[in-house]
């Protein structure tokens, strides 16, 4: 099976190389025979990579330690659950996993567009196949997951205990699904440039792909945050580590893209901008991969054998050069037909939203690569940490939050005074009232707390403007519907894109509130405790009751501390933070215990212990962290509404096209 897996990787490389060339030649020379032949390539490539993947999974499940990769990331006693996820636990497997997702996406695109859009799709397929080639090249010649060990060892080394958490099964695939997903809109954008088909067809064809990829990337970031929160035991969920930034930057640029395409669809403007944004999003995903695979930047989670950096750097420069050249050569065709009218318009709102998002992305990028730049220029490595990112991104983020509230309720083209008064009076009033109520309650002693206060006021502003939109729409429909709920349902159902988007915004507001509160009101304390002693934090008192050791499995020993938690003299919870010792790993893993409520999290760590049963306990009190995760679920709901197939949307678009007197062309979705 291993031989087969290795062999199919080779076949996949050969066919995808052929496919790239054949698609391009078919499209250029208008050769239907070549096209028909090339059209078989996606299936063959996908099948080959699938076989390779199955072979690797089989090696994991059958404990085939003759494979170096299986030996390094699994052992006999590893749970099947983690054997499955060890597949992407290391560099080699994760590249294969990447290729698997990419070709699976390609298959879906292929099926969606079978004998449709014959001008654009062959080029798009060629671009995707070319990128597949790159990964297959690495898999075949540089990081072959089927590399053998001549004398197979009896047992493997086991998966890193930090990775033995159910998030391991959820987080990396989610992030990869998002990362890889942006290849599709990118490929279509390139195809549009190459084939000079520069209306908004490529955007419409890939809108769902963009939304879904954005969704996975967003969820991947949130899952990563909550994994770090429960597993790494430092009380936080985000540290502005280079690898986190690597996942964060494409998300931010993609958010900008997601918004600015709406202007192109509605107003036929910002064509160059959109092209540049999708290119930038894709480049950011490659840059992110470069950071994680190169070991160039000091980070807490780089891969073991971080040797692939230069390949990715090469790919990065190649893509940037080719795409910039393409965009410049097509510049005359990308000219906008309309222009912005007024600052007080939704178009301007979108423009500023884009600038702010790119500002956040650039600040993050600059902070990430600053050590390299300073070393190159001044000869000393200068690093920036979380204070830098907070100092820069928090003000920009607050401005962005204000725009989330303004954008959806300001008029298109040019807002009149009466429009402003009608739409803004109520939300502003709510925000002011909310601010007045909060003023005596919240602390305002330093800059971070003042920012948090501002964030709360803005959150109330945005939330009330969104809810008023829902309310107004529901009321307007109530006349024709039986119940309020029915009216709300039909409102959302008939305007999925709009109200789905609003729902996502409500989720984002919750995340803002959670970040604002937890980052400035959080406190922590630590103490060495003997049995019976107590540690206090805010209103809580934790009494250390006992320490116990459990031989959980033959490979895992758990040391558990038990603490009774009291509030106002009443026992409300028993905290059981623990440390786990794994056979074969020389460091213990801390398992924290968290009591999570919407108001605040109580987060208890067993930091240390000694033989006399005394233990060091660290306690965090983090307000409103749960809002982040709840906001995430609301975003998920909103995205689902947005991505639901919608016939009305197409009809509305045709109406708009007729109004704009653009030549009628059949809808291609």
């Amino acid at each position, binding site marked *: 099976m291993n031989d087969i897996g290795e062999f199919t990787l080779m076949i996949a490389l050969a066919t995808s190389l052929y496919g790239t060339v054949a698609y391009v030649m078919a499209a250029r020379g208008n050769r239907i025979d070549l096209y028909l032949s090339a059209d078989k390539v996606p299936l063959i490539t996908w099948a080959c990579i699938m076989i390779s993947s199955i072979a690797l999974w089989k090696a994991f499940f059958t404990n085939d330690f003759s494979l170096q990769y299986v030996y390094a990331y699994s052992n006999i006693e590893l749970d099947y659950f983690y054997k499955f996820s060890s597949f992407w636990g290391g560099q080699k497997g994760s590249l294969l996993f990447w290729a698997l997702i990419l070709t699976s996406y390609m298959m879906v695109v292929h099926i969606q567009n079978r004998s449709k859009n014959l001008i654009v799709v062959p080029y798009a397929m060629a671009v995707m196949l070319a990128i597949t080639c790159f990964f297959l090249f690495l898999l075949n010649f540089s990081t072959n997951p089927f590399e053998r060990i001549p004398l197979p060892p009896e047992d493997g*080394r086991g998966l890193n*205990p930090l990775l033995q*958490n*159910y998030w391991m099964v959820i987080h990396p695939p989610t992030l990869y699904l998002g990362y890889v997903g942006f290849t599709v809109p990118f490929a279509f954008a390139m195809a549009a440039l190459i084939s000079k088909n520069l209306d908004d067809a490529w955007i419409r064809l890939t809108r769902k792909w963009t939304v879904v990829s954005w969704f996975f990337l967003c969820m991947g970031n949130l899952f990563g945050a909550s994994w770090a929160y429960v597993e790494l*035991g430092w009380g936080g969920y985000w540290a502005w580590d280079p690898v986190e930034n690597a996942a964060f930057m494409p998300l931010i640029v993609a958010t900008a893209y997601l918004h600015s395409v709406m202007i192109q669809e509605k107003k036929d403007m910002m064509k160059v901008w959109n092209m540049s944004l999708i290119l930038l999003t894709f480049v950011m995903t490659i840059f992110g991969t470069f950071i994680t695979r190169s070991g160039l930047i000091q980070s*807490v*989670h*780089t891969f*073991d054998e971080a040797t692939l950096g230069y390949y990715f750097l090469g790919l990065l420069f190649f893509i940037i050069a080719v795409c910039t050249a393409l965009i410049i050569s097509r510049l005359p065709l990308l000219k906008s037909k309309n*222009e*912005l*009218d007024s*600052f007080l318009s939704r178009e*301007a709102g979108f*423009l*500023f939203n884009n*600038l*702010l998002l790119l*500002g956040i992305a*650039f*600040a993050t990028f*600059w*902070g990430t690569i*600053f*050590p390299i730049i300073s070393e190159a220029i001044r000869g*000393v*490595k*200068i690093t*920036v*940490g979380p*204070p*830098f990112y907070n*100092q*820069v991104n928090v*003000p*920009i983020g607050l401005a962005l939050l204000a725009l989330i509230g303004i954008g959806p309720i300001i008029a298109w083209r040019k807002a009149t005074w009466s429009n402003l008064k009608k739409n803004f009076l109520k939300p502003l009033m709510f925000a002011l009232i909310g601010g007045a109520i909060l003023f005596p309650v919240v602390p305002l002693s330093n800059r971070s707390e003042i920012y948090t206060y501002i964030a709360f006021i803005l959150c109330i502003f945005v939330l009330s403007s969104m809810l008023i939109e829902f309310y107004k729409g529901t009321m307007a429909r109530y006349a024709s519907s039986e119940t309020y709920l029915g009216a709300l349902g039909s409102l959302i159902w008939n305007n999925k894109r709009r109200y789905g988007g609003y729902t996502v915004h409500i989720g984002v507001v919750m995340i803002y509130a959670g970040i604002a509160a937890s980052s400035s009101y959080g406190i922590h304390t*630590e103490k*060495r405790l003997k049995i019976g002693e107590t540690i206090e934090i805010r209103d809580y008192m934790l009494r250390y009751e006992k320490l*116990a*050791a*459990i031989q959980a499995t033959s490979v895992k*020993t758990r*040391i*558990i501390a*038990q603490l009774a938690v009291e509030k106002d003299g009443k026992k409300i919870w028993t905290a059981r933070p*623990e*440390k786990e*010792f794994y*056979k*074969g*790993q*020389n*460091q*213990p893993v*801390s*398992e924290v215990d968290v009591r999570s409520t919407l108001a605040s999290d109580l987060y208890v760590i067993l*930091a*240390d212990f*000694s033989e006399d*049963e005394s233990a060091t306990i660290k306690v965090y009190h983090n307000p409103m962290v749960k809002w982040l995760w709840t906001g995430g679920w609301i975003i998920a709901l909103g995205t689902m509404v947005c991505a639901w197939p919608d016939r009305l949307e197409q009809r509305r678009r045709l109406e708009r096209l007729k109004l704009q007197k653009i030549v009628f062309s059949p809808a291609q979705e």
Partner: protein
Amino acid sequence: MDRKKIKFALGSSLIVGTIGYLIATGINSTSTYFFTVSELMDQKVSFHGTGLKVKGNVVAGSIERDPGDYLNVQFAIEEKNRNLNVVYQGVTPDMFQDGGEVVVEGALDEQGVFHANTLLTSCPSKYEAEKEAGGMHPGTLPDYKPKLKPDPRKVDFLPKTTI
């Protein structure tokens, strides 16, 4: 260019300028130098008082804890045979141990002792290289393991669920 375009160009450059200003001041006020131990020792200028990040390996046997206050830790880190004494107050990470690679963040005092306010240990996946260098044999639990014998009777805990 007509007036509208100029207006938008001005508005946009105002935003871009503000962001640029934020980044520039942010870098100036928050950046810290990053050295390895030997690089720090070779610097001609004195760095005492300025924010520093220093990378090195914990000198074997140098970790000392204050018997009265367990959270008060002293240790030395070395790189290329140069040593740096560090004091640190707080919980040490799981991977903080003899020979382990650490990054400390803090400042030097006049005596050349480094006062760390954060202590970071490197990625756990490094255990691979360490083992191949003849470190710990897989299958042995660390010495760190307590003498607490697993005693089923003593345990009245509910198993914690991690799926």
